[in-house]
């Protein structure tokens, strides 16, 4: 009997009290349109627990001033709390040093930073960048901009019908002009988990740095950048129960030191004259201007919250949800699951025969079920599966088996309306 078949009955992970966790999330008590909110759009953005909301309020009411500037007490407190948040994030991804973490506005800015700081300095005409079919637009477009500017070339790793990268093809793409690999840890559209360790080891042996888009992985599994041995790892705060407007670019210190600054301004310099400016050390070299201090501190509180629950417990609960939902949808006539990789995380993309995803999304919304419909900023994936769009349910650790049942009932209703 397969794992999927045994998952037909809900089997919550032992000692994981989802109701106690849900009590931490005030937004989950909402009843939009009179129906209990079933929030299954976590891959787009997750919700924030009271602990993080309280931390933001505490910072803003008792600790706020600009950082790295004045000698007064509030500025020293704000600076200490901001840097403490960086330490927490460094522990969260097991970075060797906290100066390897740069606060950005999110994953998109993190990739853009790597493109400007590393790509524009070290990638030139005729050089090649390897990306994959599974990339989010945010890990495609910056590299296309670079390729256009420099005359470099983008090579793309194909996928199979299950949504898994073809690793043989990946390895064949390498040549003496390969300068960078950009790969997502988890596909936002399909949920496929990519075999990063194998891919990174292959690139490492050829001296090619690897940038990992971790936006969809960091919320769902333990990330260890030293174990992965990646050169860059980018992720967003708002998918991690933190605020919007904050994210991280992790980079190996030696690499960050060789890179050129991305944005110029205050805080990223040691000295400025009109003749010459000396840049600050990492990570300040890449943090020009006043950063989102409150958001960084809030993100620090968010990873504290997640670590207290335990990323392994979170992953186990989400896998149980995914297996249960997959087993339900597999049995429904007229439902096609898009993305059936052996290794998946928390994402269930599907198409209903004869019903456009927008209609699915609107009708599910009338039942209080929030899913994402559209191309998920991953149009190459949609083209590969020959669909204009999909409906996507994406789970977080605060979702329940009953919410999966609500999704299934909602899909049945959509089919009834369109029958």
């Amino acid at each position: 009997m397969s794992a999927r078949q045994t998952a037909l009955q809900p089997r919550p992970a032992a000692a994981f009290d989802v109701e106690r966790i849900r009590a931490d999330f005030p937004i989950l008590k909402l009843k939009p349109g009179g129906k209990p909110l079933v929030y299954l759009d976590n891959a787009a953005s997750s919700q924030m627990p009271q602990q993080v909301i309280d931390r933001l309020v505490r910072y803003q009411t008792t600790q706020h001033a600009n950082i790295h500037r004045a000698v007064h007490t509030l500025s020293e407190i704000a600076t200490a709390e901001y840097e403490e948040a960086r330490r927490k994030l460094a522990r969260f991804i097991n970075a060797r040093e906290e100066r390897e973490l740069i606060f950005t506005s999110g994953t998109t800015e993190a990739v853009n930073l790597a493109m400007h700081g590393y790509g524009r300095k070290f990638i030139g005409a005729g050089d090649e960048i390897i990306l994959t079919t599974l990339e989010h637009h945010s890990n495609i477009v910056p590299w296309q901009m670079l390729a256009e500017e420099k005359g470099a070339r983008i090579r793309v790793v194909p996928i199979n019908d299950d949504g898994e990268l073809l690793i043989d093809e990946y390895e064949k793409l390498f040549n003496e002009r390969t300068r960078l690999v950009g790969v997502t840890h988890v596909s936002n559209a399909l949920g496929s988990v990519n075999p990063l360790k194998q891919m990174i080891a292959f690139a490492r042996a050829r001296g090619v740095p690897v940038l990992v888009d971790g936006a969809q992985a960091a919320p769902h599994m333990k990330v260890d950048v030293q174990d992965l041995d990646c050169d860059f790892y980018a992720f967003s705060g708002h998918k991690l129960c933190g605020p919007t407007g904050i994210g991280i670019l992790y980079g190996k210190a030696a690499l960050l030191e060789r890179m050129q600054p991305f944005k110029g301004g205050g805080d990223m310099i040691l000295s400025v004259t009109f003749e010459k400016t000396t840049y600050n050390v990492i990570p300040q070299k890449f943090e020009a201007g006043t950063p989102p201090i409150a958001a960084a501190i809030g993100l620090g509180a968010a990873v504290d919250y997640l670590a207290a629950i335990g990323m392994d417990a979170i992953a186990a609960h989400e896998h149980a949800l995914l297996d249960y939902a997959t087993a339900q949808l597999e049995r429904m006539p007229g439902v096609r699951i898009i993305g059936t990789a052996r290794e998946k995380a928390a994402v269930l993309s599907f198409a209903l025969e004869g019903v456009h995803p927008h209609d699915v999304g609107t009708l599910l919304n009338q039942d209080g079920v929030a899913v994402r419909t559209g191309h998920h900023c991953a149009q190459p994936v949609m083209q590969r599966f020959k669909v204009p769009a999909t409906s996507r349910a994406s789970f977080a650790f605060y979702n329940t088996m009953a919410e999966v049942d609500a999704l299934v009932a909602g899909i049945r209703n959509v089919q009834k309306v369109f029958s």
Partner: protein
Amino acid sequence: MSDPKSLYQEVILDHNRKPRNYGELAQASHKAEGHNPLCGDHLTVTLNLDGEQIAAIAFQGESCAICKASASMMTANVKGKTRQDAETLIQEFRDMATGHIDVAKQAHHLGRLTVFAGVRDLPTRVKCAILPWHTLHAALHSVADTSTESENDPMHAPIGDA
């Protein structure tokens, strides 16, 4: 579906299942293609003007139910009408969908097209309902290609990502 607040009323579902005037006119005097790159919806409107009158009109394409039903009801409504009357309907439909007129209170010529009034509460679906009208407008003005995202188009209405 019984919920009167639902957008998916029987008339819309019926036009989605059995679209009227579906296809492409072989000898069209006017033609335009409309697409919404945000969701992949696309359709073609072909029509024949006899003087100022829309003698024949057809549409075809791939889209969600709201877009297809809107296109189907649009063709049924404007067939036989003058270009000027069609332009009035285009404007009124757009104003209804974007909440600029309240069809319950203000005078209009939309008739049963008011089943689409509910889209004004669903900003991400407004473009689905408007796309056929947008495309008809382009056809009447002989703009061969149009898009809900082309900024110099008079029908352009910036609404969030789909």
